[in-house]
């Protein structure tokens, strides 16, 4: 008889690097990514006996992470406006251009709604097809297409928009 816990442990050992990457893409933060992965693996463990095909377990874990990340995002988004971390300052960008760009990119990704972030993560970072992404997200390929288009439009707008400089009050 196969020991389910040993099997689960093997699964985690084999899949956790890839799952952690996905978690990072979904959250944009290393610490949150670990929390997300740990929480999702616990949920996977609870349903382990019901996952018939072991090859489906990784997809199930991804789906669980996406749903959990969406829930977390909702937790932070209810009744909340989008925070800005600081007053953008164009003068500093030449000197620290590369660092600013990385920070901006991560911040921009994190500002996307969870669903759009998930679509981007799966389509462009995990290189999944529209159909595979749709299956994981539990929606139609058409929805994946429209969410992708919106997310990219937002990314482009955010990354190319002129920086706001405050007027004197």
């Amino acid at each position: 008889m196969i020991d389910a816990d040993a099997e689960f442990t093997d699964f985690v050992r084999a899949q956790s690097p890839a799952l952690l990457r996905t978690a990072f893409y979904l959250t944009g933060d290393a610490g949150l990514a670990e929390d997300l992965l740990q929480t999702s693996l616990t949920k996977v463990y609870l349903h382990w006996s019901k996952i018939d095909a072991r090859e489906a377990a990784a997809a199930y874990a991804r789906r669980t992470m996406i749903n959990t990340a969406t829930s977390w995002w909702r937790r932070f988004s209810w009744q909340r406006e989008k925070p800005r971390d600081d007053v953008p300052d164009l003068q500093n960008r030449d000197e620290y251009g590369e660092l600013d760009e990385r920070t901006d990119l991560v911040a921009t990704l994190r500002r996307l709604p969870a669903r759009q972030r998930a679509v981007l993560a799966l389509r462009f970072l995990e290189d999944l097809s529209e159909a595979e992404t749709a299956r994981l997200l539990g929606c139609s390929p058409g929805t994946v297409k429209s969410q992708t288009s919106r997310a990219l439009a937002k990314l482009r707008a955010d990354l190319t928009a002129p920086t706001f400089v405050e007027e004197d009050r």
Partner: protein
Amino acid sequence: MTTPEDRVKQVLSSEADQLVPPPDLARTAIRRGRRVRRLRVVSGVAVIAAAVVAAIVVPTASLSRSEEPQPAGVISDGGLVTVNNLWLQEPDTSREEATRWLDQLRTGEAPKVPTVQSGSLVDGSRSVRFPLVKPQSAHSFGRVDGGWVVALQDRFDEQGPITYGELTPTGTLQSLATGHGLGATLSPDRTQLAYAVRDRTGKLEVIVREVATRMIRAKVTVPDKRADLDLIAGWNLSGIWLNGSTGALLWAPGSALVPVPAADVRVVAPQSSLVQTHEDPQCARLASWDKRLVPRIQYCGFAGSLAVSPDAKTVVVGQIAFGLYEPRTQRLDLPTGLSIRSVAWEDETRILFAVQRADDGVTVVRCDTTTGSCERAPAGPDVTLPRN
């Protein structure tokens, strides 16, 4: 030319390459999973038992401590009660399934709160068009004496300034203030607006302005060392709550800022001293303020927000409505794991959920927390519910 998606991929991939999974992922998952399985068996009994204990203890203990009765389940000596394993309400409902469910719901009355729909503020039978001069997103904070307090922001500049104003029934927008993305909040009596501004040196001020007269009634400068503050989390009977990554600040206008060591504070019922905190990513906790945060009850295995009724007597966790002051549990007739964009209370017992549809629109669902019954509250697919 490098596209934005290529740049995102390059940056995130290089950061992801450096990540190493923690060593005990499987062991921790198994340990937590086994604990949840044990709790699954006893949780129903535990919740009821806690509520029954509270029903016996609360009337004598809480009323002597404060005017506000203690939530059901809170031990009279201040101990924290934990309601566990709510995540077993999973799995999530797909948006297609959710849409089918939404479409077969019976239709009730339109939302009885001021909503924003297609560029208009809609409140009952009244619809007032926003005087928008360019593409802007708008949301409502709710009713005030002369109309509604609203916020407007350039749709294409979500980091840009936010204009707060009072929309009158004739469609005139009277500007109150310009703030930034830390948000704003109405006072519990809905006569004042608190918002934040930063000057070009980065100095952050929180300002309280009276809605009727537009006069500034109080303001405070946040110390430079608290540059981490990123959100006005609400205003309740204790004061105005500000959130940051290194903890919260509480400000009762006219007095000094008080640091509060708590994570992700959110005001849940302005007419109470209750706030929600998240000390653990998997537990949403309710605490009350009495010179310090006193934890009262927490719901673990639940990652979403708690929705506390305006009278602070009922809390909705997932699809369960718990009595906070009396042993009362009512399951709402909702599928599990809906994608809910926002919530608002119509009154002390009826709650509205803006539920995401497969076509990216939302449908508003009204649930009665006393009976559990739910119905559709007709509104446009782009409806947004008020924030306060």
